[in-house]
């Protein structure tokens, strides 16, 4: 083994310079064994349903009913029940769509991009983050689908032969978006499921051993007969790597195409080339905000401190800081280009954002997105989990307002002053959006109750005892 020979004869220079030993970050604290990991994660599913779960679940169902009611009323009455009117025909629906889809992006970033970059700390949070992605896409999809008005014609979005014999307009970025979001949803589900396969097999065998034949059969059906064969692992790991490799350009392209919905138009404030990278950074920023919002309570409730260590929280805070700062830079650069481009309409659009009728929204956006993440420079802040959690809420709020500012301020003050307007949401819109948090929570609660919230196989693989040369610290 090249590795063994290397270890046997260290270069002579090393003895002279005595390099410092850089300790590797510990992924699973307290030197836990393989079976401890299995017991810890399966125990959540096998144990009795906790009372807090039922309380949260019922509460989440009640909140979700607001979306159901709002949508039922919209279908029965018409899309006019939302507050849209000329000139603002895209408003909360598209704001909410971009907000939710952006939240999903951190899940794919963690599962795909960090996998390619060999960031091992992703292992303990990637399953829950991927679940978050899927549920966020579900919530996002509700808005454009119902915004089409006659939702029973929503299938016209896809190139399915219809009785009018006409096809979709593929020149339109909105049609690109249909393909981007549906591909994103599909690939996210597939990626998640492939990751779940070995863990479903663990649950199958555990439920079989404990005599619960029904649950064993259910988990077993979806485990597809996984048996941990190394010949299978070989193909599996390759497939997983390729899925990570294709999800990386996918996640970048999805928010790029979402930004095309605006950037390809000719509206001042939308028609800018900075949108694709700016939207992607914003999406990752908001997504990490949501990951922190979800994972910190989970870590506390299930006593997961050995699996989600301070190191993990540090990493997430630092990514939030980096992407938040990129977003702040993008805000500044938009203003600079509006001035430098010397286009009076563009210049007006930005002055209007900061000092016009929607200035309140603009300054909420700036304070939440630019100022909040700067706290993460400080170690003391990152180590105070309650404070990190509060900051993560501010990030979520700020990113919602970012989309509101971009969409509504540009539309409300368009080219013709005679058509200017001021948009306010209707109560139906507010209820529908409020309810999506319930939809998301219902799905997420079901996930933490019935599926392993962390990938056991991947966690075991990053422990020191997984190393075939015994002890992984000298690699």
């Amino acid at each position: 083994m090249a590795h063994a020979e290397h270890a046997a004869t260290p270069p002579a220079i090393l003895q002279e310079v005595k390099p410092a030993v850089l300790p590797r970050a510990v992924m699973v604290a307290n030197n836990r064994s393989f079976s401890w990991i299995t017991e810890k994660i399966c125990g959540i599913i096998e144990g009795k349903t906790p009372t807090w779960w039922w309380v949260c679940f019922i509460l989440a169902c009640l909140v979700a009913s607001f979306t159901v009611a709002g949508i039922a009323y919209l279908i029965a009455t018409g899309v006019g029940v939302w507050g849209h009117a000329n000139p603002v025909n895209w408003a909360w629906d598209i704001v909410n769509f971009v907000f939710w889809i952006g939240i999903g992006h951190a899940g794919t970033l963690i599962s795909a991009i960090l996998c390619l970059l060999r960031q091992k700390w992703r292992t303990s949070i990637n399953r829950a983050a991927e679940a978050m992605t899927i549920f966020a896409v579900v919530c996002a999809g509700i808005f454009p689908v119902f915004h089409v008005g006659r939702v029973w014609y929503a299938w016209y979005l896809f190139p399915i032969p219809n009785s009018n014999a006409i096809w979709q307009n593929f020149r339109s970025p909105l049609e690109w978006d249909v393909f981007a979001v549906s591909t994103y949803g599909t690939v996210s589900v597939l990626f998640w499921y492939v990751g779940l396969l070995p863990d479903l097999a663990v649950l199958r065998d555990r439920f079989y051993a404990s005599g619960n034949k029904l649950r064993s059969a259910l988990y077993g059906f979806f485990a597809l007969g996984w048996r941990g064969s190394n010949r299978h692992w070989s193909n599996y790991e390759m497939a997983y790597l390729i899925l990570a490799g294709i999800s990386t350009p996918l996640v970048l392209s999805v928010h790029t195409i979402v930004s095309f919905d605006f950037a390809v138009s000719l509206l001042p404030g939308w028609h800018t080339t900075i949108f694709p990278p700016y939207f992607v950074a914003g999406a990752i920023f908001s997504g990490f905000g949501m990951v922190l919002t979800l994972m910190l309570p989970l870590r506390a409730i299930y006593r997961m401190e050995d699996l989600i260590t301070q190191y993990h929280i540090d990493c997430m805070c630092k990514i939030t800081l980096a992407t938040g700062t990129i977003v702040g830079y993008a805000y500044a650069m938009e203003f600079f280009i509006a001035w430098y481009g010397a286009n009076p309409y563009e210049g007006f659009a930005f002055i209007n954002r900061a000092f016009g009728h929607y200035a309140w929204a603009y300054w909420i956006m700036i304070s939440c997105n630019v100022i909040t993440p700067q706290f993460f420079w400080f170690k003391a802040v990152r180590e105070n989990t309650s404070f990190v959690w509060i900051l993560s809420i501010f990030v979520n709020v700020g990113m919602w307002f970012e989309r509101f500012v971009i969409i509504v301020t540009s539309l409300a003050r368009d080219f013709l002053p005679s058509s200017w307007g001021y948009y306010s949401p209707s109560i139906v819109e507010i209820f529908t959006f409020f309810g999506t948090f319930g939809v998301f929570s219902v799905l997420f609660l079901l996930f933490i109750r019935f599926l392993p919230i962390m990938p056991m196989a991947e966690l075991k693989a990053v422990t020191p005892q997984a190393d075939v040369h015994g002890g992984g610290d000298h690699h």
Partner: protein
Amino acid sequence: MAAPSYGLIATFDTTPDLYHAAEKVRDAGYRHWDCITPFPVHGLDKAMGLKRSIVPRISLCGGIAGFCTGMSMIWWTGAVDYPLIVGGKPLFSPMFAFPVSYELTILFTAFATIGGMLFLNGLPMHYHPVLKYEHIRRGMDDQFFLVIETRDPRFNLANTKALLEKAGGKNISELEA
């Protein structure tokens, strides 16, 4: 024994034990054998003498098929089946067809990758002799198994058992087919 034998199964407690045993079985020239591990063990492919997985080739085919599907669908629907001028733009251009083709490339690659992985692994297969092993639950949890099948030309109950014992295997027992 009533049921025909599928092979011999041996248990190992640690990853290095399994790794070195796999090297010995590989060097003894066995072909129909396998390791059962709760997680992908880094380097075990080499110890087992496995070749690089061919999943990437299937993925590539899927990707090419996806890109061609996107381009030809947009060309055929927009420029052949129902030509309709919108905004004075051309009936077909690879420029505006690119985003959709790009997404379909990724979608088809994902399908091909997962389908290819399952096909190469022979999954779904809900029945397998290994899954009948009474301690299989530990193989999904914290133990490692090495299985040598009877159909291997070198398989010989006594010799194979001796090899597994020498390699450090514990609890060596026969698997029913």
